[in-house]
C-alpha cells in the first residue's frame, strides 16, 4: 500500500463524514481511566448503586444518576445560611420514600476557602475530598453533592488525581494516617441532576399550579463551566446549547422560563469578594444580572442551583434598592421551587424567612396563604422558646400542606 503524504492524510481525514451518533463517536470517559487505576490496585471506584438512570452529558456520554441510597454531601453555604435549601432536598427524598443518609462524618469540601484565599494546596484539597468519599464508601451510600462548587471542585480534583501519580501517592499516604483507602466514585453527581432526573415524578406529585409564574434561570458556573463535559444537556432545552438542569424541571412543573442576555455571566459571588470585598459582588450581581433580568423579562422569580448564587443574587438587592436601582426579584433554588410545587411547608421546610429579598409577592401571585403558615411557624417558635418543644422535626415537616387553602 502506498504511503500517504501528510497532506493526503489530512485530506483523507477531512473526507470522512462527521459522526453524530454519540454511541458510535465515543467521547472521553473519565471512568475508563478510573477503572484502569482500580485494576492496578491504586484506587477503589465506588459504583453507582442500582437503580440508576442515565442522563446525557454535554458531548453525549451517558451519566448514571442514582435514584436512592444517597449520601448527602451537604453544602456549608446551604446549611449555614440557607437551611431551607438543604431541607428541601432531603424532604423530597422522603416524599418519594427513597433511602438516603444525612451524615455527620462529612466536612465541607473547603473549596470555597481555596477559591477565596488559596490557603491550601493540591494535596490538601484532594485529601479532603478523598476523606469525604472514603467516609461515604464506608457506609455503602453513594455521594450526592449538594454544592455546585463542591461538585466542580471535586471533578477538577478527580482529573488531577487521575493524571498525576505523585498526587495520588501523596493523598494515599495522608489517608493512610487515618486508615482510609483512596476512593473515587464512578460518577460525581450534583443534586440538581437528581432533581432533573426526577422532574416527571415531581410533576406527578405537584399540588400547586405554577403556570402564572415567569422565572429566569441562573446556571451556576461551577456546575457547568468546570469540567464542562460532565454536565447534563438535552437537545430539547435551549437546543442543547446550555445545561438542561433547572430549566427542564421548571418547564415540567409549568413555570414559564424566560430568557435574558446575560445568562452566561456569573452571579458575582467571587468567593473572597462576597466575604471581604462585597462592593464587587453587589455591583456585578445587580448590574449584570438582576437589573438585566428586570429590564428584559421582569420575572416573578429567579431560580438557580448553587449556594453562592442564591446568596449573592438575594442578599445584594437590599443595598441596590437604597440606590433606587431596579431590583426586587426573589431568589430560590430549584430544590425549593420543586418542594413548593409538591406542597412543602413554606417555613418548616423551605425556610423562606432566611431569604432577604421580599418573597411575599411571589407567594401571593401563586395564591399561597403564606400568612397562615407563618402564624403556624410562629407557634412552633413560641413552643421552642417556652421549652415545650425541642425543635422542628421531620414529623412536623414531612406532611405536604394545602398551600392555597
Amino acid at each position: 500500500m502506498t504511503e500517504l503524504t501528510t497532506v493526503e492524510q489530512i485530506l483523507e481525514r477531512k473526507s470522512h463524514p462527521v459522526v453524530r451518533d454519540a454511541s458510535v463517536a465515543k467521547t472521553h470517559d473519565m471512568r475508563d481511566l478510573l477503572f484502569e487505576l482500580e485494576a492496578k490496585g491504586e484506587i477503589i471506584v465506588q459504583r453507582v448503586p442500582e437503580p440508576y438512570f442515565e442522563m446525557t452529558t454535554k458531548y453525549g456520554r451517558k451519566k448514571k444518576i442514582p435514584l436512592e441510597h444517597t449520601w448527602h454531601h451537604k453544602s456549608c453555604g446551604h446549611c449555614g445560611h440557607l437551611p431551607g435549601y438543604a431541607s428541601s432536598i432531603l424532604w423530597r427524598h422522603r416524599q418519594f420514600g427513597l433511602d438516603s443518609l444525612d451524615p455527620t462524618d462529612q466536612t465541607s469540601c473547603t473549596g470555597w476557602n481555596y477559591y477565596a484565599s488559596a490557603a491550601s494546596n493540591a494535596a490538601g484539597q484532594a485529601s479532603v475530598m478523598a476523606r469525604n468519599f472514603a467516609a461515604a464508601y464506608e457506609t455503602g451510600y453513594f455521594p450526592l453533592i449538594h454544592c455546585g462548587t463542591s461538585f466542580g471542585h471535586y471533578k477538577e480534583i478527580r482529573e488531577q488525581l487521575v493524571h498525576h501519580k505523585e498526587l495520588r501517592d501523596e493523598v494515599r499516604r495522608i489517608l493512610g494516617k487515618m486508615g482510609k483507602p483512596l476512593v473515587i466514585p464512578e460518577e460525581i453527581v450534583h443534586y440538581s441532576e437528581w432533581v432533573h432526573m426526577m422532574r416527571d415524578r415531581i410533576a406527578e406529585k405537584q399540588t400547586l399550579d405554577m403556570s402564572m409564574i415567569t422565572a429566569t434561570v441562573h446556571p451556576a458556573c461551577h456546575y457547568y463551566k468546570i469540567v464542562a463535559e460532565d454536565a447534563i444537556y438535552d437537545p430539547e432545552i435551549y437546543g442543547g446549547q446550555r445545561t438542561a438542569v433547572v430549566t427542564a424541571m421548571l418547564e415540567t412543573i409549568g413555570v414559564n422560563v424566560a430568557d435574558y442576555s446575560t445568562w452566561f455571566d456569573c452571579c458575582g459571588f467571587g468567593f473572597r469578594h462576597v466575604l471581604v470585598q462585597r462592593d464587587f459582588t453587589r455591583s456585578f450581581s445587580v448590574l449584570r444580572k438582576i437589573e438585566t433580568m428586570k429590564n428584559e423579562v421582569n420575572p416573578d422569580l429567579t431560580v438557580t442551583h448553587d449556594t453562592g448564587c442564591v446568596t449573592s443574587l438575594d442578599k445584594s438587592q437590599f443595598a441596590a434598592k437604597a440606590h433606587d436601582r431596579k431590583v426586587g426579584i426573589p431568589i430560590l433554588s430549584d430544590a425549593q421551587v420543586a418542594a413548593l410545587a409538591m406542597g412543602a411547608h413554606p417555613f418548616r421546610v423551605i425556610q423562606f424567612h432566611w431569604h432577604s429579598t421580599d418573597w411575599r409577592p411571589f407567594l401571593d401571585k401563586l395564591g399561597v396563604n403564606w400568612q397562615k403558615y407563618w402564624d403556624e411557624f410562629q407557634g412552633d417558635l413560641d413552643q421552642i422558646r417556652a421549652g415545650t418543644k425541642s425543635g422542628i422535626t421531620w414529623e412536623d415537616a414531612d406532611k405536604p400542606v394545602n398551600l392555597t387553602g
Partner: protein
Amino acid sequence: MPTTLENWNPGKAENRHPDVTYAEKERLFLEVKNDVRFSDFLYGCYECGICVATCPSARFYDYSPRVIAQAMAREDVERVYDIIAEDIWNCAQCFSCVRCPRQNNPGGLVTILREVSLKNGLQETKDALQGYSRVIYKVMLKGNQVSPDMLQPDFFPDWGPWVGEFSANMQIWRKAIPMDSIRGVTDAAWRVDRKTLLELYTIWFESGNMDIIKELDEALYDLLTEVMQEELEEG
C-alpha cells in the same frame, strides 16, 4: 530610549517592581511553572479575547485573563510578577474563562499564582486577605466555611435589616429546621463528628497546609496549631 538590540524586548513588561530582584521574580515564576497542574492549565493563547469577554472581574477591574495566559506562555518573568502583586486577587474564580478555545484555564493559573504568593509570604497577598482570617479559622477548625453565628450586622450591614432580625432570632430559628444534622447548630453549618474533625486536622498538618498559614498570619497559625494539636493529642 531608542530601541537597540540590547534593550529590544518585544511584548515584555517594564520593571514595575524594582524593589524585587529579577532572580527572585524568576524563582517565583519557576515555582508556578513547576506546579504539577501548570501543564494542564496552559496550552498557548490565540489572543481571541473570549476569556476577557466572559470574565466578570474584567468588567469591574483593570484585569485580564488573556494577559495572564499570554504572560505565562511567553514566560515574561516581570509581567508575571506584576500579575502576582497586582491582579490575582481580582479574579472571581467563576471559571467562565475556561471557555477558551485552546483549553486554557486562566482561573486555574490564578489559583497556582495565589498559592505561590501565599507560600512566599508576599505582602500584597497579606493585604488582600486582611479580614479573611476568621474564615480560615472557621473552615480549618470546624470543617465548615460558614456558620450562622458569622452572620452579624457589623459584618454584613449591606444585607440590610434582615441580618439584624436573623441575628436576634438565630438560636430559635436554628432549632426550627427538620434536619437532624443542622438542628440547633449555630457555630458550624452542620454537626461534624469529633473523629472527622481530627481526621481533617491530620490532613492540614500532613499536606503542608499549616506551613501556608504560617506564612500568611503567624498569630492565626499559633492559635490553630495549639487548638488542633491539643485535640489530636487528646484523641
